[in-house]
């Protein structure tokens, strides 16, 4: 079976809500039925075949070609299967996804993988603000799964994060790990200001020394036994995180945010 492929014919001026085009909703539909699905496009409703040419049969393996930054809600609440996005993706990519995999070749917008529950999201470009965060007003961000970003991420990555892993090969913006309840965010590049602002628990794993903060206390240098196990779990990824030379178990441990409950930690690689 060939992948169910949506090829964008032209870039609409207004944003498109792609949430109807997830594997579980297309599983039992004929190609004609899929083509007739309506998508919200700005204040209009458009048929799928008005903006996409559709081909293929395997709804468990969806490919979106010529994608660009106004295609929002791709893979919303995905329950299984695989979505490949060739190009950029808009906001709310993988919102609340429950299982399966999404891979984007380009950049993604705001709130990617926010309130994600399980599964795997790979972003080969950069990600916008609030990666893996909670929706505005909500208290619980990402609850499980793994997010891999090969580029940089915006501000507030992992805001209100509860569980799971966010792996960032590039840099992270300000307020990375803000209000985290638990989980792990690993950043190979640089981090911005207010790292771990108001974090309660959780781990920020860094390859580079962050800006000093009065809200985190130095707990000294340590060799931590869980780090080799964590790095071993990254081995299956197509990423720098799988590289043996990037792994370490000797870290400087900072505890905080002391203005919150202070059970979080920033672990910085000691070279």
């Amino acid at each position, binding site marked *: 079976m060939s992948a169910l492929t949506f090829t964008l014919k032209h870039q609409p001026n207004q944003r498109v809500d792609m949430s109807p085009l997830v594997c579980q909703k297309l599983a039992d539909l004929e190609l004609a039925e899929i083509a007739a699905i309506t998508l919200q496009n700005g204040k209009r409703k458009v048929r799928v075949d008005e903006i996409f040419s559709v081909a293929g049969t395997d709804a468990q393996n969806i490919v979106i070609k010529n994608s660009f930054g106004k295609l929002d809600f791709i893979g919303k609440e995905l329950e299984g299967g695989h979505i490949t996005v060739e190009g950029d993706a808009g906001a709310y990519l993988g919102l609340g996804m429950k299982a399966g995999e999404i891979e984007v070749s380009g950049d993604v917008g705001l709130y990617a993988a926010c309130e994600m529950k399980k599964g795997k999201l790979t972003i080969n470009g950069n990600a916008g603000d609030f990666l893996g965060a909670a929706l505005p007003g909500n208290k619980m961000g990402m609850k499980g799964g793994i997010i891999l970003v090969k580029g940089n991420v915006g501000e507030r990555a992992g805001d209100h994060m509860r569980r799971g892993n966010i792996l960032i090969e590039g840099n992270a913006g300000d307020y990375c790990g803000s209000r985290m309840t638990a989980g792990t965010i690993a950043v190979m590049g640089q981090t911005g200001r207010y790292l771990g602002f108001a974090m309660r628990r959780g781990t920020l794993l860094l390859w580079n020394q962050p800006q000093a903060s009065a809200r985190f206390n130095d707990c000294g240098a*340590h060799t931590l*036994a869980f780090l080799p*196990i964590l790095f071993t779990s990254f081995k299956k990824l197509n990423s720098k995180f799988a590289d043996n030379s990037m792994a370490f178990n000797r870290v400087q441990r900072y505890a905080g945010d002391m203005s919150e409950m202070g059970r979080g*930690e920033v672990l910085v690689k000691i070279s």
Partner: protein
Amino acid sequence: MIINGVAIDATFAEAFPMKATRAIITAQNEKWAMISAQAMTGFATSVIACGCEAGIERVLDPSETPDGRPGVSIMIFAMGGKGLAKQLETRAGQCVLTSPTSALFAGIDGGTRIALGKNLRYFGDGFQVSKLIDGKRYWRIPVMDGEFLTEATTGQVDAVGGGNFLVLAESQPQALAACEAAIEEMRKIPNVIMPFPGGVVRSGSKVGSKYAALGASTNDAFCPTLKGMTKTDLSLEIESVMEIVIDGLTKEDIDKAMRVGIQAVCDLGAANGIKRISAGNYGGKLGPFHFHLQEIMA
């Protein structure tokens, strides 16, 4: 059946269903992993008074352990799941948590999940940290030498306990040498432990006693000093009898261990004073697993 001058009795060992679990202890080096493992499996020769039977299964290469450090695999057997869980937790808390540089991991992925470090985390007094890695929950418990890392749960599976055979020899040193040779070979078999000291027991028991308070007493039929005083099972030249008891995850595992053990004894043969191999049973009425010696060695 006679192998190398050693008579194999037409009898069988009788074994019982048990519950078992396995844990992996790692440490900075093999010495300290072994110290911790020995502590955890200490005073666990028989369920009669120890609450469980435990032993070291084998030493693990760093490439085989979850954290890449030297390790030791241990197994614990008990008559029921509740007792097993209690023993595991108590021993993990007193013998592994306390042991310098140690970490503790599950040795069985499937089965019923029972607490390994799940409740030890409270020792962390609120400073403990949980990590969910590849679907497995770990606890990082701050301790004075750094951090004690433990997996939250391990697997409990159905198992078999009480496989055994008796080595009948012309002298005590010869019986012991034969048992040592057997144990050396049996330790190469996975999924089994020999829970008695050094794997060998010299005080095999029978069911019942002349004293009403006791459920078991010395196996007088196999006591060489009683040959003229009781209904003995020994010929005159037998001066010493020793037993090897085996607990295993399956009947097949015990079969294998018994085969290599008896073979090692027989390899020493009559020339080294080994006269007979026998086994302990209760007439076949108590235990559902029967290990017929001659079938095993056929």
